[in-house]
């Protein structure tokens, strides 16, 4: 790679950094979030004469103008900041994200640099951080540093604290230095008394990148903050700013400063200016009172026992609303044995300072109980009431009070450190016995439907019936009305307690009245949505249960155990080769969903053989038994250009009986000719680009199946390509992907929308119902519902699954066929034509040299046009839809690495050519936004060791490029579980040696070896020779390329000429 290309790449990729900047003075400012950036490190500046300035500007920090773009409308204030950075030889080291080559010499030490930063006010900082994507990039060009990622987590927590209302009002002295007397300010502070929040503080403080602590204002001489202190400073300032800003609209009423100090404090809590005016002494006094008030939140901590409340329902329900039929019993509970409970009655009878009970000693039991009751009485009036007795054992409650206790008081008491025992029917997450609607679904047809996607989505074949239920009990309208007349929130129905929220009763009665309108017929798809648990509410009423019977029930059962209990089909007779057991299950699963007309997403890990499973499926669907007589419509496989050849070859290999047509390349069939040809084949292979370009032709055909390989290509629902593909008429749809689709919600929606249109609702609905709550708010309930809805349609097996591992060899070798791009094909043909002309007229050593040079050139063309042309041209070219690959092989490598990295895997990439290694490093770094190691002949020994250590450490870079010669022997790189051979070597022994870098002692996982071969080219010929004549390999090709030079020109032509199917 040339320096120019390097420069261009890095220029386009600023790295954003940021940190909280606590400000000790003036306190009203509180602090700010500073954003700064690194850009390309240029060559070291020449040392100029004279004395250098005290603090030099950072040589490759970005300027403020560049920052303003990324702030996306949030106003920042430009400010110069100082930052302490690891530096060497008078230059700061670049952050690892910047991917800069570093000089090797010199000690690393901390030095101070000046950078231009944008300061964000606290609330703006939260908004900005919360708006950043959950990826390591803001846009393809802008990379988010680990430090920004850290503050994203902190901001998420901050939002969580605010939403959960974990903050308290305080009154604090604002000691501005030099002020004649203490002034006071009102401040909202986060309350971290929840153990989960304390754990979050520890977790975050431990993970804070040190660079977050390296930033300061130029005139700030205060001591540096530790991680926890920096984090709490952030929380304090942002909490205060946000509460003030967000609470204000509700309190526009307080215009003038009131007289009383406590009212001044209240006012100052709710407006922008936190200062509390007034006499310092009055305020000091008030501050003491406020602190005393807040001190109540402190729990007694590590007492050996505590006060516990047990709510006991009456035997018979209360007759009227005022009857105090419920008992709230007081007990002492041992902290280390929650089932050890001492009733209050026994406690009061103890005369001494100690009580023995079941061999346990309780110190000061009465006082503990009394102190606890004194505290709890502030939370719940009935407790206070009970304390007018001399020896209170319980509070008596009306039904309404009991309901309030269960819904609210119990939670507050628990938070305050008391024990609470609620009746079992209440349950942990609120009432299980509550009022709701129950659905009964019944298939209107005896037999399950057939007929593909359309049948599933539209045919109304399921009838729905609704009933009202209170817990498990079905209610009649009469019963409901009787219960409603009681006007009690807790009722007894058929001997069991249940919750009857008055608001819900109203909805329920309304619901009953309009019930006729909601009953009706559903499509299978709608029915499945309900059965798989998507429906939570219906006309304001909770859905408490859905049931089905007959084949519908069986279908849901099988779907939910995806593949678990399903019958495994025998491998199709026409399949040549042997499916592994898990592949057989996968193919059976595809066939199972096909029978129901349901779209399936096969998302197995790369290398597990999705292609083979799909081919088996195609054979099964086209077997004589599957289709009653009529020949099924052709299947359309849409894949990235780079794998067209691979599909073709895999089908030829596994299913030679299937007639395959490739629709690709400049000389592809058009119009009616295409339609006719397509109908005459079993499988048509084409590409995403052509699915759009030739949409008119493809839309005219009734496809049996439409299969998307690398289905993440339709992840953008709005893209023309996605929309066209969705329109392709198909009976059955399959998506193949190796990326963890379930974690990328937009991609998931888009793929599911292709597979089973409408199943996940419109994109808007999906955003509102699932994507935003899950991604932005951490809504686990929504995540659970989405999982339940989609799981039946996604089969994802990992190569680490124990059941898969046992089916796999330790070393799994695969040849991946890549397709040349048009540019590569043209170059290839030109080289062959040119060279053969010259070879024909030369002889002897000159001829041999010419042949060898030709082989070299062709291999270069297969690798990448830029390697062949050696003109420093970029790896990718701008196309109408964004950057386009110039090399099919590189494109394929990118796709495969994306899947591997998404799995957290590590990979070695071997190439024979150092210049290709450089090109790969540049392109892969840019594509994945992470450092890629490259070890070649010129790498100094110390550097090699360092690279190997970093790769092996488990935390360093995940991709390691090695030149075959320099890295093929000696090194131990068992952290990798993928090995890619980017180009082929004549001698398999050399390749195997390289492969063994990863596959050697210490390797605990299976190793996947991928050999990339350009279909139809010299590479495939070499591959064939190696594979077919393994026994002879050493004898024939062991010596390298020499034997080729002895071939006749005709033989050479045959060997070298690009075959028809190579490219377009």
């Amino acid at each position, binding site marked *: 790679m040339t320096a120019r290309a390097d420069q261009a790449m890095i220029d386009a990729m600023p790295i954003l950094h940021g940190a909280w900047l606590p400000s000790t003075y003036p306190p009203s400012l509180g602090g700010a979030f500073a954003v700064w950036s690194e850009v390309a490190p240029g060559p070291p500046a020449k040392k100029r004469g004279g004395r250098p300035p005290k603090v030099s500007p950072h040589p490759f920090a970005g300027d403020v103008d560049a920052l303003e773009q990324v702030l996306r409308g949030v106003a920042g204030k430009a400010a110069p900041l100082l930052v302490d950075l690891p530096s060497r030889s008078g230059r700061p080291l670049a952050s690892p994200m910047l991917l800069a080559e570093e000089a090797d010499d010199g000690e690393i030490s901390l030095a101070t640099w000046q950078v231009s930063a944008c300061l964000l006010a606290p609330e703006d900082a939260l908004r900005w951080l919360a708006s950043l994507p959950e990826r390591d990039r803001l846009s393809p060009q802008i990379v988010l540093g680990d430090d920004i990622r850290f503050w994203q987590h902190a901001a998420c927590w901050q939002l969580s604290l605010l*939403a959960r209302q*974990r903050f308290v009002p305080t009154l604090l002295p604002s000691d501005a230095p030099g002020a004649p007397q203490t002034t006071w300010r009102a401040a909202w502070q986060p309350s971290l008394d929840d153990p989960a929040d304390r754990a979050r503080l520890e977790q975050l403080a431990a993970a804070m990148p040190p660079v977050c602590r390296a930033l300061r204002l130029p005139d700030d001489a205060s001591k540096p903050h530790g991680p926890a202190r920096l984090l709490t400073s952030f929380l304090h300032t942002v909490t205060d700013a946000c509460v003030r800003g967000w609470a204000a609209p509700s309190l526009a009423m307080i215009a003038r400063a009131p007289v009383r100090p406590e009212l001044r404090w209240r006012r100052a809590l709710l407006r922008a200016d936190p200062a509390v005016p007034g006499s310092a002494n009055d305020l000091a006094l008030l501050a003491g009172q406020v602190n005393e*008030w807040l001190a109540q939140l402190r729990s007694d901590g590590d007492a050996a026992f505590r006060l516990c409340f047990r709510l006991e329902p009456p035997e018979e329900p209360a007759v009227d609303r005022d009857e105090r039929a419920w008992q709230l019993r007081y007990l002492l509970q041992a902290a280390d044995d929650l089932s050890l409970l001492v009733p209050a009655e026994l406690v009061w*009878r103890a005369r*001494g300072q100690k009580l023995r009970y079941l061999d346990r000693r309780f110190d000061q039991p009465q*006082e503990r109980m009394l102190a606890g*009751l004194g505290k709890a009485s502030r939370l719940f009036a009935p407790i206070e009431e009970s304390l007018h007795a*001399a020896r209170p054992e319980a509070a008596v409650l009306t039904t309404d009070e009991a309901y309030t206790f269960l819904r609210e008081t119990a939670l507050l008491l628990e938070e305050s450190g008391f024990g609470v025992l609620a009746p079992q029917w209440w349950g942990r997450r609120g009432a299980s016995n509550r009022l709701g609607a129950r659905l009964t679904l019944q298939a209107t047809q005896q037999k399950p439907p057939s007929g593909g996607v359309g049948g599933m989505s539209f045919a109304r074949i399921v009838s729905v019936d609704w009933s009202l239920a209170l817990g498990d009990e079905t209610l009649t309208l009469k019963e409901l009305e009787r219960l409603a007349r009681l006007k009690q929130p807790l009722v007894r129905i058929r001997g069991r307690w249940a919750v009857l929220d008055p608001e819900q009763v109203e909805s329920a009665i309304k619901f009953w009245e309009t019930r006729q309108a909601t009953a009706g017929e559903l499509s299978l798809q709608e029915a499945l949505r309900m059965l798989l648990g998507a429906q939570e509410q219906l006309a304001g009423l909770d859905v408490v249960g859905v049931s089905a019977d007959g084949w519908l029930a069986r279908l849901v059962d099988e779907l939910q155990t995806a593949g678990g209990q399903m019958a495994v089909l025998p491998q199709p007779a026409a399949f040549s080769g042997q499916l592994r057991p898990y592949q057989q299950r996968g193919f059976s699963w595809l066939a199972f969903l096909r029978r129901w007309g349901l779209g399936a997403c096969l998302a197995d890990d790369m290398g597990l053989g999705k292609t083979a499973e799909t081919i088996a499926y195609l054979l099964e669907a086209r077997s004589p038994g599957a289709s009653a007589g009529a020949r099924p419509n052709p299947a359309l496989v849409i894949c990235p250009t780079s794998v067209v050849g691979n599909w073709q070859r895999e089908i030829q290999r596994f299913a030679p009986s299937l007639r395959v047509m490739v629709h690709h390349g400049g000389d592809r069939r058009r119009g009616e000719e295409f339609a006719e040809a397509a109908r005459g084949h079993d499988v048509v292979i084409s590409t995403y680009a052509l699915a759009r370009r030739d949409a008119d032709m493809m839309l005219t055909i009734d496809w049996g199946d439409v299969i998307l390989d690398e289905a993440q290509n339709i992840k953008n629902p709005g893209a023309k390509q996605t929309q066209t593909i969705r329109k392709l008429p198909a009976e059955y749809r399959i998506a193949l992907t190796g990326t963890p689709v379930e974690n990328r919600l937009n991609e998931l929606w888009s793929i599911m929308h292709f597979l089973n249109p409408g199943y996940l609702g419109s994109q808007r609905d999906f955003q*509102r119902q699932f994507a935003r709550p899950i991604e932005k708010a951490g809504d*686990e309930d929504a995540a659970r519902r989405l999982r339940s809805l989609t799981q039946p349609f996604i089969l994802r097996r990992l190569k680490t699954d124990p059941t898969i591992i046992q089916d796999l060899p330790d070393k799994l070798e695969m040849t991946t066929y890549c397709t040349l791009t048009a540019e590569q094909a043209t170059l290839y043909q030109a080289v062959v034509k040119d060279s053969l002309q010259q070879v024909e007229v030369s002889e002897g050593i000159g001829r041999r040299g010419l042949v060898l040079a030709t082989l070299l050139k062709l291999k270069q063309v297969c690798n990448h046009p830029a390697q062949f042309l050696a003109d420093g041209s970029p790896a990718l070219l701008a196309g109408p839809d964004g950057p386009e690959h110039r090399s099919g092989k590189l494109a394929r490598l990118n796709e495969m690495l994306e899947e591997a990295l998404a799995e957290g895997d590590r990979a070695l990439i071997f190439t024979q050519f150092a210049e290709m290694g450089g090109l790969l490093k540049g392109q892969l770094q840019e594509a994945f936004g992470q450092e890629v190691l490259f070890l070649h002949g010129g790498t100094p020994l110390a550097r090699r060791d360092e690279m190997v250590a970093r790769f092996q450490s488990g935390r360093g870079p995940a991709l390691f490029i090695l030149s075959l010669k320099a890295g093929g022997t000696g090194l131990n790189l068992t952290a990798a579980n993928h090995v890619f051979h980017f180009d082929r070597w004549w001698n398999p022994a050399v390749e195997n040696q390289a492969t063994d870098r990863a596959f050697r002692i210490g390797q605990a996982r299976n190793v996947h070896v991928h050999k990339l071969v350009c279909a139809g080219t010299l590479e495939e010929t070499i591959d064939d020779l190696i594979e077919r004549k393994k026994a002879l390999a050493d004898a024939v090709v062991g010596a390298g390329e020499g034997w080729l030079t002895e071939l006749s020109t005709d033989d050479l032509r045959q060997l070298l000429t690009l075959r028809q199917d190579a490219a377009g």
Partner: protein
Amino acid sequence: MPRRHDYDDWYPRPSKPRAADGIKARSKRGKIGESWWADKWIAALEPLLDSGRLSRGRSYARKGLVLDLDIGPGVVMSRVQGSRARPYKVKIAVKTLTAAEWSKVIDALAGEAIFAARLLAGEMPPDVETAFWAAHVSLFPTRSDDLHTDCSCPDYANPCKHVAAVYYLLGERFDQDPFLIFHLRGKDKDQLLAELRQRRAAEDLALAEDSPAYEVAAAPESSAESFEPLEAVLHRFWDLGDGLDAFSAPVVRPAVEAGLLKRLGKPHFERKPGEITDPLAAAYRAVSDAALRLALGEDDTQVT
């Protein structure tokens, strides 16, 4: 009644007493004592002094001129640094209740658990005086029957400003520990609690054991954070630490709206019910709404 004249200035004073290292009042200006029961205690003194002596008494209390404070049954002994080198001795005697009176009081206190419950929660029960009325006595002393003060200073007026200083500081002590008033009246906390306990215990179920003194677990000291200096972490200067993969903080509404506020209850300084807590509760709700809107994307007005 002494004459409401301040003759203090008649005496030549070598120097004004300066602040000393004695007990300093927490209140820096205005009234001393926060709780209603401290107010009640101080109210007994205020009619006995002119405003000049009272204000100097407060000032003495704030400057730390009261050197010590020894509270025993029926008597408070104290030394106050005046204008002379030797501190003055101040004695405040309060009549203790007789055993018979105490017995009646404790009967009344044991009759309702709320008295002990509130006391143990650090608060004087609001209607504690009703328990004393049962024995025809009063918890808070008044001059007429049961408060005697004495000071070794030359001021002929009694009470003098030194007595006032001690008196104010006692008020602040009572703020912190309402049991002290009972102590002054003849029963300390342990005695009081033990007798209350005995009244409650109908029969002797458990063995009384000797107990160690009532221990209060000390709050853990918040220690200064220890962390690695930047120089020590150059090798991982830019790296995010482990363990954040599992980090999650759900942005959801609380199970109970304004739960912290409800746990705190009505503050003592809130005079009109709800005048402080109601607007704060509204603020809590508004903040949740805004945080959820921000988390879920602002274009979406529908917040669930």
